[in-house]
């Protein structure tokens, strides 16, 4: 009854609605076999719903879900053969660590001797071999999450679903577990991973591709580099990394921010149209240079290695991350900023360009 699922995940126009409230709107997305796909978005964006549609805990109002070439839309969760790890671990409190890990194998009636070796293997892989006889309550949060991952991996799933697996951990543990997950994926290159998170660092670090979601919709999908260097829209720009989003008017070979003329690649934009200019804060320099912006310093934050400047330029606030300044300017002082024409991207204007 355990179907080995290989061949990735495919959402074919999947719509999910609760009481007429659409929480996932016609999602089309394909995750290639062995790929790590991050579903990145704020809460309520529909990313967890998409994951739960793959697991079988929500039934789509329309559309199909495929695991490999198998249509699993109507299949109950226990017939899907997927591994799942959730934010709250959900380890069975009445079972020891080894019984938790063995659970999926016993449910599939795997012979006892094989259960033992596969449990040992899964615990070894997650570094929890020494804790086999403990109960979940005797473990720390990070250890519990490792056991949850071991439990999901013991059934050797073709698809692994991770629902905010690191959100319940503190920051230091989180970066450790992130490296751990990356290592696990290198050891298990055939496992397709769908990783739901609201943390862009997790998505950028771990994912082969990122699907950015907002308000029940897929907003962009691409490699971390694509989304960071050339975001398709303002929402993606602001959610994947930080971004200055400035309303501009497209000119013949540049853009107009108020009275200031800026040299940027206009691409296919029509002169005279309004657009949003996206510049990453760390690509904005202090002082004179190409594409000079002048304004007054509104706020200054010292972040150890860098200073972040908030500068009011013609009514717009521009962020700049620069190397730590020996003599930072004072509040209200005039400041010049600049950025290279190649570092800016012109995006189509959106109704609410500054929502994030």
């Amino acid at each position, binding site marked *: 009854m355990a179907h080995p699922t290989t061949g990735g995940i495919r959402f074919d126009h999947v719509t999910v609605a609760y009481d007429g409230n659409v929480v996932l709107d016609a999602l089309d997305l394909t995750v290639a076999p062995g790929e790590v796909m991050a579903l990145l978005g704020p809460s309520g964006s529909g990313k967890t719903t998409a994951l739960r549609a793959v697991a079988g805990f929500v039934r789509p109002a329309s559309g199909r879900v495929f695991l490999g070439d198998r249509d699993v839309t109507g299949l109950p969760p*226990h017939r899907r053969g997927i*591994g799942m790890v*959730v934010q709250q671990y*959900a380890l069975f409190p*009445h079972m020891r660590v080894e019984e938790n890990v063995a659970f999926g194998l016993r*449910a599939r009636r795997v012979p006892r001797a094989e259960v033992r070796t596969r449990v040992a293997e899964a615990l070894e892989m997650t570094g929890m071999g020494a804790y086999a006889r403990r109960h979940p309550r005797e473990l720390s949060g990070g250890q519990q999450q490792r056991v949850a991952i071991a*439990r999901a991996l013991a059934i050797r799933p073709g698809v692994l679903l991770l629902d905010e697996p690191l959100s319940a951990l503190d920051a230091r543990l989180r970066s450790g577990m992130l490296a751990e997950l990356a290592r696990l994926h290198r050891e298990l290159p055939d496992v397709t991973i769908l990783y739901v998170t609201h943390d862009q660092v997790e998505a950028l670090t771990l994912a082969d591709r990122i699907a950015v979601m907002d308000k029940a919709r897929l907003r962009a999908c691409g490699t971390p580099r694509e989304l960071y260097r050339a975001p398709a829209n303002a929402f993606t720009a602001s959610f994947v990394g930080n971004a200055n989003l400035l309303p501009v008017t497209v000119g013949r070979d540049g853009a107009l921010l108020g009275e200031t003329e800026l040299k940027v690649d206009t691409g296919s934009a029509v002169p005279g149209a309004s657009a949003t200019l996206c510049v990453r804060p760390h690509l904005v320099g202090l002082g004179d240079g190409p594409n000079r912006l002048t304004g007054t310093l509104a706020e200054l934050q010292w972040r150890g290695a860098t200073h972040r400047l908030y500068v009011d330029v013609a009514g717009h606030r521009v962020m700049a991350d620069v190397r730590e300044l020996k003599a930072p300017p004072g509040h209200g002082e005039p400041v010049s900023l600049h950025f290279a024409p190649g570092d800016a991207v012109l995006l189509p204007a959106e109704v609410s360009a500054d929502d994030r």
Partner: protein
Amino acid sequence: MWALFLLLFLPLFALPLLVVLGASFATNWSGVLPSGPTTAHYAAATRGEALQALTTSLVTAVAASLLALTAGTWAALAAAELGKRRRKALDALFVLPLAVPSVVVGLATLVAFSQPPMLLNGTRWIVIVAHTVLVTAFAHQSVSAALTRLDPGYAQAAASLGASPAYVLWRVRLPLLLPSLTAAAGLCFALSMGELSATMMLYPPDWTPLPVLIYAATDRGALFTGSAVAVVLMTATLLVLLAVSRIRTRASYR
């Protein structure tokens, strides 16, 4: 705080029990305190008719609790799958035996089971059925309360690991509900041990539970013998509850 507690607790709960305890050892009680200490009442209360009644009560209570627990748990599990409105209706139905006076439940059971093909009148089964009806409400309520508190994440994690719904119920949900199940069992048992009003209308001559015996003893004026039997009833109930609570502490995981 403690003074207030003692002020309420002593006269309301402790004193009546102490009086019964005192009376059970007395031959007469005409002054402030009972006099003429004796254990003769206990000799009577632990053999013959009284011993028979104790066994009857224990068997009835155990059978009724187990039946009620099974029915109540089953109904609570089924109700959890229903929509909100139908679940409310089912809950109301199960609370009905609590809302209706137990004399009425006794009478209803008597009328319902006095006709073939369900002729239980005159057998021990009619007492067990009536007790089951009376205590199922408690079993159902405490199990459905525990079910709403149970994190659905456990069952979902189990299902994602490939466990069928039956396997999930048996290996995950019921074990996690065990503390509530034993608590409900204890409550049902205690209620059944003390049930008098419905039993009075139903019990056949060869199936006399202990509370009926106590009532009969006091009714004919044998207050001290009645007290001794009451203490036996109390002790037996407490011992069983203590045993049940031992299971409960061993089964609680957090």
